[in-house]
């Protein structure tokens, strides 16, 4: 019984083996333009972000978010970001009570950025093990929803990326979200600095 079963399995696996070898041989022959289009291309990135944001007048908060990227060329990439944080009390509110509450205390921000790889190189952590790295600048626009206000936001930043493996990247970012707010003062231009770390996968 067992032998019979093994023979069938052997036959089946040998058959697939020959079939696969045949298609493999065929695959290697394909060199037309279509097949170059079919080559695995790594253009997209997805990642999770965590860090600290300093909401102007409201203190530093833990921030989390997600990002999606598109590699447009060797030097240029585009990135979509969404981050959120729960704001604490401003120093005014500590003595006078909270100005707003509930959902309004959630700091939510999204933006669309364009990035430029300034310096690409290698990072050596241990011995001769080289990790690909890159220093980049980002700039873009987006929206910040905080304290019942929605504000047009400019984002500028600088970041450093280290390749953990072929497809995983670790990114360290410093960003400044600049927008006008009337929460505490009339039309005050606020700077909200964020330091974050992202783990991204390329696909």
């Amino acid at each position: 019984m067992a032998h019979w079963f093994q023979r069938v399995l052997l036959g089946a696996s040998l058959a697939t083996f020959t079939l696969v070898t045949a298609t493999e041989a065929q695959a290697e022959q394909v060199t037309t333009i279509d097949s170059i289009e079919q080559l695995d291309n790594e253009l997209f990135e997805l990642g999770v972000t965590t860090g600290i944001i300093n909401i102007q007048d409201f203190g530093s908060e833990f921030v989390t978010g997600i990002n999606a990227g598109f590699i447009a060329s060797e030097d240029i990439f585009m990135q979509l970001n969404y981050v959120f944080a729960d704001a604490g009390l401003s120093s005014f509110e500590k003595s006078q009570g909270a100005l707003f509450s509930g959902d309004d205390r959630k700091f939510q921000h999204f933006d669309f950025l364009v990035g430029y790889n300034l310096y690409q190189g290698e990072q050596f952590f241990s011995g001769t093990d080289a990790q690909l790295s890159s220093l980049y600048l980002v700039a873009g626009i987006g929206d910040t929803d905080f304290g019942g206000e929605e504000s047009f936001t400019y984002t500028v930043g600088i970041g450093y990326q280290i390749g953990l493996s072929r497809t995983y990247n670790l990114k360290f970012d410093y960003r400044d979200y600049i927008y006008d707010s009337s929460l505490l003062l009339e039309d005050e231009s606020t700077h909200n600095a964020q330091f974050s770390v992202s783990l991204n996968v390329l696909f």
Partner: protein
Amino acid sequence: MKYILWLSLLLTASYSCLAKDIMIRLEVIDPYLEMHTGPGDGYPIIYTVEQGEMIDLLTRRPDWYEIKSSTGRIGWVKSSQIARTIQPTGEPVDLPSVSYGDYLEDSLSLGFNVGQFTGGELKGSQTFSFTSEQRWLSWFGTELEVGKYYDSEVRGRYYGLNLLFEPYSDWVVSPVIIVGTGNMKTTVQPKLIPLSIEDSGYYQYGIGGNFYLGRNFVIRAGYREYTVSTEQDDERLDRWHIGFNAFF
């Protein structure tokens, strides 16, 4: 018997893994190819492949190809160098390399732009839009646009569908004509005198230009005129904008 079984199963498994990768074999005709550690000019050169050697293409990224040399070395080569190779049949390789708009047919793009209303009752409001465009023909596409506008006392959003005509899409800088329709909604009104645009349909037309920075990366700027239907007379607005689009 058992060993043969396991061996054959193992072989099948490993071969089916290999078979998934499409490899393209090419012959180097330049004196040499430079192999970098990563897909960028800044990454160091670790190896050179000589004339007459065969290489396999493994992966592609914008402007770069990951290759494997016949000696088993893996690295990244600039596409301009890969373009100087031939297929085993003797024909030169035909890469989808640097060219402008004409290849855009059937491609999707994502982008964003930033701008400002310069006329009408929203004068001075800053805007941004996210756009997604499907290019059906090299000179014709449809675009979905979602955006917001902001002023010190005004907030609002708009969305619309635009038709894009770009007759000379093979030029590095090429003109674009846009016509479209959509809806505009003011979510935060000024305290004293409310705007007539509350939740209103609009149509727009505009002109602009595309500047192709690379094969799939475009800077687009333009000027648009809006006619918004409100409860009173039609409201006219105009807006300039500049932004980026990436095709993939």
